[in-house]
């Protein structure tokens, strides 16, 4: 029997659980020859703000510990260009498109939600790892109450669009943060964003990145991400989208076992732009070989090594 890989995120049906993560898939068409956007469950585009952001000084990325540390600084074209230039050709291809929303104030998120509610995007992903200027640059996600307020405001303005909230990895209590944003009305949560990191050249005593610090992604963050997904999925009934270091179908399956309904692929796309298609094919094979009929049958099935 051919496994059924469709998954449900609120009102949204994805044809498979693979989603291109924000920041590695551009505005959705750059990699279409390698991985057509409509072949995936969904694609999430580069984070967008109300007005264009310039981003950080170069260098903006460096490899470390088998992963990638980046400090792009959320450079983007702004929501206006996003809606007029990036979105129409993508929607014409029938891709399921998520807008990754970034802002410096709570109001930025609400305003963007209102604008996107009127657009053809299929869902919103609120990136709450941005520095909150009003709070001296701490990320919105580092305070569960603040994250809940941001979510509630944005959900109110987003109309009937599903709202996913993307959580940062390093918080005191990931279960509490997950609960708070779901209680505030989020359709689902996605985690993790990159892990704060620093790369130093000891001979020159200089930081490798123009922004000094950055965010680690790729293989080294997978165990950390799995643990956060596991804890968050236990804490909420809403769907959890897992990501962090997924490079293969087996990696994706691990996240589903930990409790994820869908997964996102980030850095793997930079290493090989065709990797999501390979992962998709291998995931079908995995489900077939293991006789798993569907994603829900695998989701959250984690056991301890000595459990019966």
């Amino acid at each position: 029997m051919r496994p059924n890989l469709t998954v449900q995120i609120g009102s949204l049906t994805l044809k498979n659980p693979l989603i291109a993560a924000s920041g590695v898939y551009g505005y959705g068409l750059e990699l279409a020859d390698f991985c057509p956007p409509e072949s995936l469950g969904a694609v999430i585009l580069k984070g967008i703000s109300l007005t264009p952001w310039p981003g950080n000084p170069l260098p903006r990325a460096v490899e470390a510990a088998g992963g990638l540390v980046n400090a792009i600084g959320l450079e983007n074209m702004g929501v206006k260009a996003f809606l007029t230039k990036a979105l129409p050709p993508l929607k014409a291809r029938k891709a399921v498109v998520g807008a990754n929303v970034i802002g410096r104030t709570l109001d930025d998120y609400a305003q963007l939600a209102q604008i996107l509610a009127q657009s053809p995007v299929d869902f919103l992903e609120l990136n709450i790892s941005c520095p909150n200027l009003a709070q001296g640059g701490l990320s919105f996600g580092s305070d569960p109450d603040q994250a809940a307020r941001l979510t509630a405001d944005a959900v109110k303005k987003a109309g009937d669009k599903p709202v996913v909230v993307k959580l940062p990895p390093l918080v005191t209590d990931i279960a509490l943060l997950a609960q708070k944003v779901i209680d505030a009305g989020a359709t689902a949560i996605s985690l993790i964003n990159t892990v704060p990191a620093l790369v130093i050249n000891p001979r020159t005593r200089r930081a490798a990145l123009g922004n000094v610090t950055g965010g680690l992604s790729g293989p080294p963050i997978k165990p950390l991400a799995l643990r956060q997904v596991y804890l968050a999925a236990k804490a909420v009934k809403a769907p959890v989208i897992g990501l962090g270091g997924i490079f293969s179908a087996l990696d994706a399956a691990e996240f589903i076992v930990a409790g994820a309904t869908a997964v996102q692929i980030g850095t793997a796309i930079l290493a090989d732009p065709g990797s999501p298609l390979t992962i998709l094919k291998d995931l079908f094979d995995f489900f077939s070989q293991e006789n798993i009929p569907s994603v829900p049958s695998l989701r959250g099935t984690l056991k301890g090594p000595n459990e019966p």
Partner: protein
Amino acid sequence: MTQNPTLTRRPISQTAKVLSLTPRGKNLYQLTLKLATLGPFADPGLFARLRSWGPAPAAYPLLDRPFSIHRYRPNQGELDFLIRPVGLGTNLLTQCRLGDPIQLLGPLGQGLGNLIPDYKNRPFYLVAGGVGLAPMANLIDQSKGPNHLFYGEREGQSLIDKAYLTSFAPNFTAVSEDGLGYGEKGLVTQSLKAALERERRTIFACGPQGLLAALAPLARSYGVNCYVAAEAYMACGLGVCLSCGHYLVDGSRIRLCQDGPVVDGLLMDWEKS
């Protein structure tokens, strides 16, 4: 400069084979690949992503590495790169054995032909700093000239083998900052300035950012065009990650991997990156 978000030329992903790996200096290798699929690699300044190690995350480095096309012989299906080992990826690539498979993704970016379609018929001053020499051979191979190459290394001992340089560049001035090796002591910009005094020509340059930045005022003062193949760290080379964002003087931003690497050097904001 025309910003071209949608390339008409599509990069090809293929497995090429190492045909030869020839030392061309103290710390410099010519890597010749036998292509499985030909492609439009000729435009000077285009680059490709290379990987001689296994797929991530089983083998490191994590990402492919970007290199300029050094020379292209479509009739033989051969593509050359000129590689200077500086770290893990470049060391692995320059330790390949004959016949080894190389994962190649390219051609990537915009070449000189995007800005000067008839580059083959134009006279140039070619300016190369260090391994920025790589794309110059590609232009010289195709050019009806006349061209003069100004090639500099910080250390004279790092200069490319003179016989190999002579084999593709009939007219060159080699310099080094320490005056060692076969080069004259000095900076390429000094030799270029002297040449511009005698005759004005369009400049095509590749090398460290400091060199490219220094060329802009020189070109302006002599009223010549200055096209440069600019470098930045590039994680994807495909326009999606924005690790290569760069400012233009008008305050707008480009992605060097897509809108470049060959750009109008006079439009680049070299102060801000």
